[in-house]
C-alpha cells in the first residue's frame, strides 16, 4: 500500500507527513471479504482495525432465534473498529461484509507499539478514532429520538 493511497484512505490521514505514512504503510494490508463473511466476532480480540475502501459492512448483534440485529453499516472511507485503540482491546459487535468488501487492514498490536514514539501519528490515529466515534454517537442519539415518527 503506497503513501498516496493511504493519504486518501481516511479523512484523518490527509495531513499526515510522509514519515508517518511510511510507518503506517508497514502495518497496512489489503483485504477482501465476500458478501456474508464475518470479519470479526463480537467477543474477539481487537488485534486489527480496518478502513473500508469499497462495499459496506454491517455491525450486528447476534440474537438467539432470530436474524442478527444490525445496528449500523460502515461504508467507503470509514473506519471499521474503534475497540482496538483502548483496553481491553476486544470487539463489542460482530462485523459482517454486507456486500463484497475491499478493506485495508492494520495490525493493531504493531500500530499500538509503533506509535508510542511517534506522537504525530499517534494523534492522527486517535483523532481518526475520535472523529468516527463522535459522528456515530451523534447519529445514534438522533436515531434514538425517532425523529421521523409521525406526530400530529
Amino acid at each position, binding site marked *: 500500500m503506497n503513501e498516496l493511497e493511504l493519504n486518501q484512505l481516511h*479523512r484523518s490521514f490527509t495531513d499526515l507527513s510522509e514519515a508517518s505514512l511510511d510507518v503506517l504503510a508497514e502495518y497496512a494490508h489489503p483485504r477482501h471479504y465476500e458478501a456474508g463473511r464475518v470479519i470479526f466476532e463480537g467477543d474477539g480480540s481487537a488485534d486489527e482495525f480496518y478502513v473500508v475502501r469499497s462495499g*459496506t459492512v*454491517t455491525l450486528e448483534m447476534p440474537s438467539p432465534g*432470530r*436474524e442478527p440485529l*444490525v*445496528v*449500523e*453499516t460502515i*461504508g*467507503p*472511507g*470509514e473506519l471499521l473498529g474503534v475497540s482496538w485503540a483502548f483496553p481491553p482491546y476486544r470487539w463489542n459487535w460482530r462485523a459482517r461484509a*454486507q456486500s463484497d468488501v475491499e478493506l485495508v487492514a492494520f495490525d493493531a498490536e504493531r500500530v499500538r507499539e509503533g506509535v508510542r514514539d511517534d506522537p504525530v501519528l499517534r494523534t492522527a490515529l486517535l483523532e481518526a478514532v475520535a472523529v468516527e466515534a463522535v*459522528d*456515530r454517537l*451523534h*447519529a*445514534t442519539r*438522533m*436515531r434514538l*429520538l*425517532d*425523529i*421521523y*415518527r*409521525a*406526530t*400530529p
Partner: protein
Amino acid sequence: MTAPAPSLLEAMLPAVFSVVASTEETADTITLRVQPQASGTTAFGPGQFSMLYAFGVGEVPISISGDPGFAGFLEYTIRSVGAVTKALSALDQGDPLGVRGPYGVGWPIDGASGRDLLIIAGGIGLAPLRPVVLHVLANRSRFNSVSLLYGARTPSDLLFNFQLHEWRSRFDVDFEVTVDRGDSAWMGDVGMVTQLLNRVSFEPDNTTAMVCGPELMMRATARQLQAHGVATRDIAVSLERNMKCGIGMCGHCQLSTHLLCRDGPVVSYDVAEPWMEVAEL
C-alpha cells in the same frame, strides 16, 4: 405584461379539484393526483405548497410532490396524522377537494446550475424534494455531480418505492438510502442520513445543498455540511410552520422577521440557522 394580483377574496377562495388517483406509499402515507374541475392552475415551482381543503373538515398546507414538467395535474404526498390529513387520505378517485395556491418560495434550482448538487431528505421530507429530483433528472446536463441522500425510519417507511429503484439505476446520480432500523429483508444501509455524506463526492465551495426533513434532522445535516466546508448560504432548508392564509396576511406562520408562507418555506440556512437554535419564537 404581468397578470393582475388576485384580490384577497380570490386568493382565499379554493378552486375545486378532483382526485384522479390515490396511491398508497406507506401504511400512513398516500399520494393524491388531482386535476382542476374547471379553473385552477397546475403550474408550480419545486418546493412550493398548496392549501388543501377537505370539505367540511378543514384546510392544511401540503407541499407539491409531483413532476413540475407534467402539466394538467398536481400531486401531493400526505401523511395521515390529524383530522384534515386523515380526511384527505380517505379521498377516492373522483372525489372533490379544494386547492389554493401554489404558494411560497421554492428550492434554488436556478442557482444550482453548473454546481454540485446535494439533495438530502429525511422521512416525509422527500416529498417536497421529489419535484427537484424529477426536474434535475430531466435536465441532468445543467448540473455537475448530483447526489441524493435519503433517510427513513424503517424500510417500510420509504416513499416512492417504484421511483427509488429507477433513481438508483441511474449512472449519473449518486443515490444512497439509509434507515434508522432495518429488518431481516433489508440489505441496505442502517444509520443516520448525515453519515451518508462521507460516501459521496462534492466540491464544498461549488456545492448547493437542499435539505428537507424534521428540523432536528435538517439542523444536524446542515452542521455536517458546514463541517465538510459547504458555505451556510449554499444550504437551503424547508421550514414548516402553521401556514393558514398562504399569502402573508394572517401572520400565523411568522418566524422572526419572515412569514414562511410568503418568504419561505424554503430559506437559506444562513437565514434559518439563528431561528433553529431558539426554543420558541
